[in-house]
């Protein structure tokens, strides 16, 4: 049944959803869907050697599960507009994750109903690992369909020309050398998907996050819809497939690659993504990213060096389909 904007009561709970116990196979299936084969999410021995208790469920996986859950709540006519989550705890394979949330605000802009909510993932031990917020686009009662087509606050060109830099000051931080601080503002190379979005890519991703929404999995439904073809789930847009031969065997990220000396572990600290246009079968996305901040803080057991990047994702017409901010935490 389609949820309507008029039915939303601010302060009421979103219907919750649980997944699991999530297995190593679930993690491998998701990894293959997003071409991500990092040891931390696949290799038990590596995880134990690096001080973890088991294979870690990946941040993009948890975020994609949240996106899929919210996408289910907004129904066949609604859309997920924005998500912002912070990774506050580690989740391992064999855990069951539960998504919960509360509607916090609702408003109408240009005749469209936006609903904000506070969301989180909690595991079977009560650990809250992914607190965050989301903005949902929920149709009014008399809405036939929503044309998901928004103007982003930047164009591809203005994104490229916006300069960011930081001055180095010797403040006694161990990891923030002059070379590291000089990475702030550095723009990565544009990175284009190795092929246009195709059905098998959508299949792998939707199977990877247990997605059953017809706009992503039902070809006949999608053809008859106002969009006219299958589209990519929002979480897939912000985690595009890695590269081809000229980009390195097992891929290359759009985010500039560099090493913080004396660190050998990197974990996902959080992500904020907003979507502006749908991505259809046959579309080819390009993403480009730059580092916008690097800082150092003390964690419980070890120092943490968060690296913040922002990524623009455009389609083959240079239209902005999404903007994403990522915090990647390096640690010794």
């Amino acid at each position: 049944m389609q949820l309507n904007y008029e039915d939303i009561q601010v302060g009421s709970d979103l219907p919750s959803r649980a997944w699991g116990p999530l297995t190593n196979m679930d993690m491998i299936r998701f990894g293959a869907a997003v071409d991500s084969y990092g040891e931390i999410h696949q290799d038990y021995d590596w995880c134990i050697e690096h001080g973890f208790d088991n294979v870690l469920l990946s941040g993009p996986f948890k975020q994609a599960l949240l996106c899929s859950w919210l996408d289910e709540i907004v129904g066949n006519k609604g859309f997920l507009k924005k998500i912002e989550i912070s990774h506050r705890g580690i989740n391992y394979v064999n855990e069951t994750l539960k998504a919960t949330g509360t509607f916090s605000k609702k408003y109408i802009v240009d005749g469209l109903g936006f609903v904000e909510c506070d969301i989180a993932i909690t595991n079977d031990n009560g650990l809250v690992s992914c607190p965050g917020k989301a903005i949902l686009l929920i149709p009014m009662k008399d809405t036939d369909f929503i044309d998901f087509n928004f103007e982003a606050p930047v164009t591809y060109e203005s994104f490229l020309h916006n300069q960011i830099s930081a001055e180095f000051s010797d403040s006694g931080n161990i990891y923030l050398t002059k070379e590291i601080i000089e990475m702030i503002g550095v723009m990565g190379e544009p990175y284009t998907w190795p092929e246009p979005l195709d059905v098998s890519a959508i299949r792998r991703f939707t199977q990877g996050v247990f997605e059953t929404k017809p706009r992503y999995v039902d070809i006949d439904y999608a053809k008859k819809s106002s969009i006219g073809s299958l589209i990519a789930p929002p979480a897939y847009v912000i985690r595009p497939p890695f590269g081809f031969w000229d980009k390195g065997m097992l891929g290359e990220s759009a985010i500039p690659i560099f090493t913080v000396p004396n660190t050998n572990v990197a974990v996902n600290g959080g992500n904020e993504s907003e979507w502006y246009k749908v991505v259809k079968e046959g579309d080819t996305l390009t993403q480009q990213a730059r580092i916008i901040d690097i800082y150092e803080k003390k964690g419980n057991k070890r120092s943490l060096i968060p690296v913040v990047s922002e990524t623009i994702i455009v389609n083959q017409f240079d239209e902005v389909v999404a903007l994403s901010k990522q915090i990647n935490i390096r640690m010794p």
Partner: protein
Amino acid sequence: MVEQEQNYLTPEILRQIGKEGEETIWPEPLDRSSLRRFIQATRDDNPLYYDEEYAKSTKYGSVIAPPFYFHRSFPSPLGVVEDAEKEEMRHRGLVDTPGFAKQVNAGSEIEWFGQVRIGDTLNSKTVVSNIEQKQGKNGPMILITYDRIIKNQDDKLIAITTQKSLRRQSEGTSLF
């Protein structure tokens, strides 16, 4: 005096010779991202499999799939997520050999008759062609031979394979 080997091939097991598996079909026509994943996974850098310009200059005229590509699994269709057991069952569920549950791949013979291109949808049909008992160093084993025919959407023969699987004596059922 040589000890008589015990015969584990019961009539129930032998009756499965000739058993046919259900026809399996690729969930979608071959597309580029599937092909990319396969050639990345097998570290195959032959441009015939990914470089359209290069492929045009060859006798094939377009990118083709590597010969062994048809051997990829036949995954569940769009919108269906199967659990590990069901997925495994589709690959192993044809022959039941109670008491012989541990299975290893004992080799295969493949003959190719045509190429696979972007847009092709393959189907596969398997028949159990033989079941025999073998004596290994660590005890008796059951050797199962499967014949498989792979065709494309135009019913054109792509490959015929003979696959052998060895099952060792172990508790449990070979049917998951």
